[in-house]
């Protein structure tokens, strides 16, 4: 039982991060139809920039804030310089562009920072709480609470603010949104900014637990993508459920089966979802119109 709880705790913690990555995918996908393969780099940036500004003597909260701002600027720049000029391009073209951006950011990070692993001090001590014989790190609670707060803030933003409603409207019907006077380009830009912020926050929260390095983004992006698909691409609630599910599956299979193929779980999830329920958990059926 203690073992089971232990795996569950670690699964939920990483799952919360996957959920944030999945939310980032979802936001951009909804607003623009683009799947942003550079989504994981926002998480990497959040962690790495915090680590290095903190190491340079900046207090942790300020370092985190700087990292957040850097990630948002990168997100907006990605949209403005790489996605918007290629508007209307085919999926293959957009895939190459966002992968190019991901490699570019990774290369930039390895130059600006370095190629080793880094960590941050836990935000609230490192003395684990014992629950049912399993250890729960305070940082895990912070990750879960932080992810929860981000989800609620995002929900509030999307349903209660004008900018957020503009994103939802654009997602529902781009043309109609433009007809009622929404600047849909600005909305897509906004979705990149918000996605970057969500990713960076995830990176900041998780670094004390999981370490970060210049190339930690790729795997995170894929796992986030698996989560987003499991929860039906484009569905924010699904992204959260998907993220936690992928995290749990990964933790249990690492614990009970083999840890060397832990990273394979996400892809098996992707394949399983694609073949067994292509619409995901929260999807509705649809047919192509000809």
């Amino acid at each position: 039982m203690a073992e089971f709880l232990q795996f569950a705790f670690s699964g939920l913690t990483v799952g919360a991060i996957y959920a944030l990555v999945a939310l980032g995918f979802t936001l951009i996908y909804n607003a623009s139809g683009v799947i942003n393969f550079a989504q994981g780099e926002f998480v990497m940036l959040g962690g790495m920039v915090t680590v290095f500004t903190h190491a340079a003597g900046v207090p942790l909260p300020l370092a985190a804030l700087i990292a957040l701002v850097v990630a948002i600027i990168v997100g907006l720049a990605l949209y403005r310089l790489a996605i918007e000029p290629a508007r209307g391009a085919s999926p293959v073209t957009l895939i190459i562009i966002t992968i190019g951006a991901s490699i570019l950011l990774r290369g930039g990070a390895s130059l600006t920072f370095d190629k080793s692993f880094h960590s941050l001090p836990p935000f609230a001590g490192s003395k684990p709480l014992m629950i049912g014989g399993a250890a729960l790190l305070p940082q895990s609670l912070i990750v879960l609470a932080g992810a929860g707060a981000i989800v609620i803030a995002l929900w509030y933003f999307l349903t209660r603010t004008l900018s957020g409603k503009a994103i939802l409207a654009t997602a529902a019907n781009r043309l109609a949104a433009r007809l009622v006077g929404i600047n849909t380009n600005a909305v897509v830009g906004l979705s990149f900014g918000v996605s970057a912020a969500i990713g960076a926050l995830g990176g900041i929260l998780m670094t004390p637990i999981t370490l970060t390095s210049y190339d930690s983004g790729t795997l995170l992006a894929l796992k986030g993508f698996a989560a987003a698909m499991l929860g039906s691409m484009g569905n924010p609630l699904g992204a959260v459920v998907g993220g936690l599910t992928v995290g749990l599956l990964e933790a249990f299979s690492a614990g009970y089966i083999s840890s060397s193929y832990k990273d394979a779980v996400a892809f098996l999830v992707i394949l399983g979802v694609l073949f067994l329920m292509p619409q995901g958990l929260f999807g509705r059926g649809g047919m192509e119109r000809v």
Partner: protein
Amino acid sequence: MSMLAVEGLGITFGGVTALADVSFEVKPAEIFAIIGPNGAGKTTLFNVISGLYPPRQGRVRLNGEDVTGLPPDRLARRGLSRTFQNLQVFFRMTVAENIMVGRHLHERRNVLAHLFTLPSVLAQNRATRAKAENLLAFVDLSDLADRTAGSLPYGALRRLEIARALATEPKLLLLDEPAAGCNPVETEEIDNVIQKIAASGVAVVLVEHDMKLVMKISHRIHVLDRGRTIAQGSAADVRNNEQVIAAYLGRHGQREAARAQD
């Protein structure tokens, strides 16, 4: 024996009934028109018959054989071909190549032979090309054979789709708005082409908004409204049917009706 028999066909999309209990039969060499106001379910009906959507109820028979739910490529083997309202031309291929794709089922498809271009493949390519040129002459597109299809005007693309569908040597041809977007001269050409196709023994099912064309060339007309059959018969029967006038002509077709009387 009917070439196509549709029996009690029904389909719904997310709770909305798009087709309900539609039945009719089409004989070889017959031109059978399906008309109805926008949203009546005409294109959906075509998509069900040609295997793109599986029906919820009913059966489709081709030449007596039950083919309900078979995928489109299986139906093509049994002699069904069609065109599309929203043109599905292979835009990056040349006009001749578009037609050559239509010959697919009549070509030997041994991939190993293709890998090493055996002489038989070359001979076959030449034969396919010659056949394509005949069909292009039939729809009057010979001059454009080596142009990229994407660069063709709209009316020419409509005829290209018809020629490509004919390349499969169909026994049943579904034409979805073949004259849409065409000028009167082009419409006239398409009218001739359709009549020639039917005269060669092919069963033609036609969805068309141009009432003048429909009334002129159709042997029988089937009227749909909101997914249901409201009338069937000759041009004269349909024109004088009160339900049809109320549902279709009465709503926004007065002018077309008047034109059709000319």
